[in-house]
């Protein structure tokens, strides 16, 4: 262990001990490290240009645009919060993005934020997210607000504390607008616990059969449908990047340990990650900058590399002549099967990426055992969901509803098989880092699971629309604790494209009519087990 690392571990441990000693176990809420914007080390939302559409309709604004508008006195948090609540009132019977809306508390917090606005919104001192309404996935503990994880198991659960990530967002000025609907126990797209589809894809509100992505379905729909500025979700098997891809968002699953999962209802301990589903790379950076950092309640967050300057990373580099270049020269790995689906869209995406100064595309070939280690071995996670749920499996298995099968499959794996899978993770890690990524800095993915297994970071972002008008996205994976590199690439791509600025049309039919007349599909227990995160 290097001396530098020793010091890093020591400092993280000291901070953790200090926070426990002071009773601030869940309130270590300052952003983990100063972000850029001023060059002085003080976190600050950069003074970006605000699009005309955002000036005219606050619900259209990105998180960063909303902060800038507030800073300039052109928008109040109360106005923004009311705009979202009005849209929730009008459209959420169709979208079903929220399972709980905390409108009164949100408005009260917004008015309080407006009073303190002069203290300096968009800075660490004033609250980087001051007055920004957020949707929180319903598997994060929220103090005094039901946290049901969309399951009969937690139907009466009201936590007495916030999850660390929620506490950090609130301490930075974020306002919880409500709880986002999700796949039952974080398994699939959002359904009722009995499998009946609830949340739709915001791009196809009239057709619940279109996949909205899961399991962070509600958080994704809330941002895509302009019912919140930004949102947080969790990912065990693609649950941040997939709904982001399906609903034209930028979702960032950080490296394991980057964000505390204390206060998040577990699905698979070794693979549960917390992260943002946002409107673009800058918004994702702002959210993660606040969420990330050590937490004494989650030892997995201790002794890790510093949180990089994510806001700087998400700020595109544009020359005076308007040419965009990536912040650091970056080799983007393209696996051999990348064009096996969405060939035309992905091909155009690669062309656009390749044209950005500083980007080099590199062909990557998977090792022979790739499918075995990333697909077959994916099942090893199931034992991890069984163990923390033993009580309910024994007492009343019907409470698992349609999701029960994968919890029972976990019982069928033995300890030695689970150990084999952990050894395979070591082997796979070396293949990825020493064989694949020694030729590239970031690696395009054709599915989220390999990097979920390894706890490596990945970001989902929009690259176009299919023939049916449904968004199509790409997933980019990175080296451990290099979320900044992912943001640099996506920020450069978003500086030369406008997919991320497109919004879906509002639902046409009256919400009550939609709810009554639209037939909602239903997932079977077998389908849920096969699709489970």
């Amino acid at each position: 262990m290097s001396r530098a690392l020793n010091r890093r571990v020591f400092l993280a441990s000291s901070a953790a001990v200090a926070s426990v000693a002071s009773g601030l176990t869940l309130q270590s809420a300052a952003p983990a490290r100063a972000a850029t914007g001023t060059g002085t080390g003080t976190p600050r939302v950069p003074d970006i240009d605000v699009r005309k559409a955002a000036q005219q309709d606050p619900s259209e604004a990105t998180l960063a645009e909303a902060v800038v508008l507030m800073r300039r006195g052109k928008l109040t948090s109360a106005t923004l919060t009311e705009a979202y609540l009005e849209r929730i009132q009008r459209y959420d019977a169709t979208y079903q993005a929220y399972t709980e809306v905390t409108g009164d508390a949100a408005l009260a917090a917004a008015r309080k934020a407006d009073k303190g606005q002069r203290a300096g919104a968009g800075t660490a001192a004033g609250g980087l997210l001051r007055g920004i309404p957020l949707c929180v996935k319903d598997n994060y503990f929220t103090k005094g607000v039901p946290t049901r994880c969309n399951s009969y198991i937690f139907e009466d659960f009201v936590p007495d504390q916030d999850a660390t990530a929620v506490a950090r967002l609130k301490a930075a000025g974020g306002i919880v607008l409500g709880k986002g609907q999700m796949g039952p126990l974080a398994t699939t797209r959002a359904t009722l616990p009995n499998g009946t589809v609830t949340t739709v894809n915001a791009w196809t509100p009239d057709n619940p059969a279109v996949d909205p992505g899961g399991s962070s379905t509600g958080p994704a729909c809330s941002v895509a449908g302009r019912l919140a500025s930004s949102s947080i979700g969790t990912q065990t098997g693609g649950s941040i990047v997939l709904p982001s891809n399906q609903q034209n968002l930028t979702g960032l699953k950080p490296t394991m340990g980057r964000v505390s999962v204390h206060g998040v209802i577990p699905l698979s301990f070794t693979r549960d990650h917390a992260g943002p589903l946002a409107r673009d790379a800058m918004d994702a950076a702002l959210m993660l900058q606040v969420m990330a950092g050590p937490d004494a309640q989650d030892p997995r967050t201790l002794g890790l590399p510093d949180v990089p300057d994510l806001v700087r990373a998400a700020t595109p580099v544009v020359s005076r002549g308007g040419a965009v270049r990536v912040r650091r020269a970056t080799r983007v790995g393209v696996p051999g099967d990348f064009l096996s689906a969405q060939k035309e869209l992905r091909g155009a995406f690669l062309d656009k990426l390749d044209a950005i100064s500083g980007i080099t595309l590199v062909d990557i070939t998977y090792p022979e055992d790739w499918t075995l280690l990333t697909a077959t071995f994916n099942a090893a996670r199931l034992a991890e969901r069984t163990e923390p749920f033993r009580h309910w499996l024994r007492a009343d298995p019907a409470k698992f509803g349609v999701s029960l099968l994968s919890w029972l499959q976990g019982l069928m794996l033995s300890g030695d098989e689970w150990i084999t899978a952990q050894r395979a993770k070591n082997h796979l890690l070396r293949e990825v880092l020493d064989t694949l990524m020694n030729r590239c800095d970031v690696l395009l993915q054709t599915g989220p699971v390999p990097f979920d297994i390894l706890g490596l970071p990945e970001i989902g972002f929009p690259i176009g629309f299919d023939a049916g008008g449904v968004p199509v996205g790409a997933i980019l994976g990175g080296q451990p604790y290099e979320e900044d590199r992912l943001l640099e690439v996506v920020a450069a791509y978003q500086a030369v494209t406008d997919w991320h600025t497109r919004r879906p049309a509002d639902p046409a039919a009256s919400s009550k009519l939609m709810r009554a007349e639209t037939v909602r599909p239903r997932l079977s227990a077998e389908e849920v087990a096969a699709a489970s995160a």
Partner: protein
Amino acid sequence: MESPYPSAEPEPITETPLSEPTAEQLDTYVRTRLTLAGFDLSLLPETFDAGTGVPTRAQVLTSLRSFVASTPGAISGWTPPADSPAYAQQASPPLIYPSITEAWTGKAGER
């Protein structure tokens, strides 16, 4: 004095392929494992309950028989590539959190 232990030079082990378990054997295994884990199959409905969507007893058994027949063997059949089992033992010790280990061993975040 004759040693009570076997020879230091063990006989080579010849692995003969086992026959596939029958459906009846799989069923017995699944039921026994559920019972040992404290899971009471009789708490599930015999016919589909639309209210909860919970799978029936028959659905559970069918699913678990299929899982047991396919997945554990596929996992346990893997060993790290090595010249012999003795060297395979030494390869790829288990990493529960690979990314975190990469940081704790000083290999991450320094690029």
